[in-house]
């Protein structure tokens, strides 16, 4: 944006007129943000106000009652902790494995490399429903049902393929000469990776980190099947628990949703610049 603004004003603008662009952007932002706004709004409404038709745009008596309920009278805090443990664990594990796998794919030629690379993707192509039963059986045999490790490993399987592909193309875009120079300067292969390649791949690493974290944080089906004990249930399951057969406490659902959304929003906003850089760099150079 600043680049456009800094461009000499003599250059003729091309494309749509400015008012149209502004209207379009506002409309798009509104459509994207409306659910979040509604979520936040509903979380401070009283139960009665929630069901009025036409809807109330601003509650007459904003209340934090829903938050009190969610934070002190439900399992949500425990689920939040579980989600943090599982997401951080699986993201960290996926990132470490992806770094080494991608570096191998990007820098070395070995027999069967194309085949292996395709196999990495095959896991991604299988429908969730098709692998849920085999995974459950595997986890049960290993005694990992209803454990943190079970979910961490399953989520790693889920996020690793795309992470490997993202990082491989990122690593490939880094000139080989830099590593050759480092090798001549006396670095080992691992030294090259950690001192040269990784510092230059920070945007790529951040993209993978955000992708893996968000995916695992929001995941529902696997968590539903493999974590049936409240000691390991994650936030998406917790949200669903507010709906019972006869009644749904929408106020509490909304408050819990806000609690669940905050970490993701903070993650995104804090890493936004690096993340966007990583996405485009991977796209154009990969």
């Amino acid at each position, binding site marked *: 944006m600043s680049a456009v603004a800094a461009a000499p004003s003599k250059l003729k603008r091309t494309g749509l007129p400015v008012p149209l662009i502004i209207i379009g952007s506002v409309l798009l932002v509104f459509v994207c943000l409306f659910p979040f706004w509604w979520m936040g709004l509903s979380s401070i409404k009283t139960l009665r106000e929630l069901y009025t038709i036409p809807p109330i745009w601003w509650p007459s008596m904003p209340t934090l009652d829903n938050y009190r309920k969610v934070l002190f009278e439900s399992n949500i805090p425990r689920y939040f902790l579980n989600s943090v443990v599982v997401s951080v664990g699986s993201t960290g594990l996926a990132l470490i494995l992806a770094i080494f796998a991608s570096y191998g794919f990007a820098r070395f030629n070995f027999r069967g490399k194309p085949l292996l690379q395709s196999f990495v993707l095959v896991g991604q192509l299988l429908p969730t429903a098709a692998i849920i039963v085999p995974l459950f059986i595997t986890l049960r045999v290993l005694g990992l049902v209803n454990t943190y490790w079970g979910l961490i490993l399953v989520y790693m399987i889920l996020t690793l393929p795309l992470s490997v592909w993202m990082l491989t193309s990122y690593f490939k875009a880094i000139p080989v*000469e830099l590593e*050759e*120079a*480092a*090798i*001549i300067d*006396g670095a080992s292969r691992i030294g090259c990776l950690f001192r040269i390649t990784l510092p*230059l791949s920070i945007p790529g690493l951040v993209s993978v980190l955000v992708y893996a974290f968000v995916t695992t944080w929001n995941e529902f089906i696997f968590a539903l099947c493999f974590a049936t004990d409240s000691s390991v249930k994650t936030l998406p399951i917790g949200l669903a628990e507010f709906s019972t057969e006869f009644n749904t406490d929408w106020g509490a659902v909304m408050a819990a949703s806000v609690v669940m959304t905050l970490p993701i929003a903070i993650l995104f906003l804090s890493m936004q610049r690096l993340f966007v850089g990583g996405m485009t760099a991977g796209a154009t150079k990969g």
Partner: protein
Amino acid sequence: MGSVSIRDARKAYGNVEILHGVSIDIADGEFVVLVGPSGCGKSTLLRMLAGLEEISGGEIAIDGKVVNSLPPKERDIAMVFQSYALYPHMTVGQNMGFSLKLARAPKDEIKRRVAVAAQMLSLDPYLDRYPRQLSGGQRQRVAMGRAMVRDPKVFLFDEPLSNLDAKLRVQMRSEIKQNHQRLSTTTVYVTHDQIEAMTMADRIVVMHDGIVEQIGTPLELYDFPDNLFVAAFIGSPSMNILGGKLQAGSFIAADGSAIPLPFAPTGMDGRVVSMGIRPEHFVLDPQGLSAQIITVEPTGSETQVAMRLAGHDVVGVFRERITARPGEHIQVRPEQGRIHLFDGETGKRIKHS
């Protein structure tokens, strides 16, 4: 300080051999330039010397020690890459000190040696900048500084100037030469530019299609090229080659015109040969051969003339100013003793004295 000895070095990728046994001996402190057209294997040879490519056959020794199976860091060499290969996330100072840091040298020692190199290359004001904030010439100097800081036995340069513009290239050329004169570290320098080779080298190795065509000092290559390839490759504009045969002490060109030779090769009558004359070795002579002018290109100090002589298009460079116009004729002859003869079949130089 170190000597380099390359014995019958070979390189093959699968079944395709691209270096067919190269042998070069480089003395301690010598500046040797590997030159040749692209694809001749010169860069591959340099990378084998550096340890970035495996050696498929033969032997490479640095300072008397065979390095075939040694990793780069144990060969005590430093390399300057064509793309400079500066680490973008490190400052100039960190770039230059990286090898010492990896070698776990004490911090003040690193600082001292970086400062010495930076001063020599007039980089001291830039030590805290990042490579992206430098100009092309400065980056080139940082790349050299990174190599100098280590005080290696051998410097390797892989076409270090080809990313610079023409003027900067000439300037960096003399800077590299000066640094070599100050440090007198053995240097192997790869380029495809024969001017760079001629101006910088103590000795030049001309390579072509994976073999060494000739090794010699710049003037040896210029005065006594071993074969047609070297004759045509060294010198600018390049040597004129005329096809014909020898007869009765003269060279008979394809169109029948005779060029008398200052020497009389005996027993070679009828032999098919190529005659080489450098453009600068034509002289104007009213008794000479008649040549029709095609174009005249004056540069001020000299005049380059494209002309048709004995059925061939040739180029002559004259110190005199030529006033003749295209289509007209001038009389020229090759300078005495400056005629090169090559065997018509093998392209090898025919020695005469």
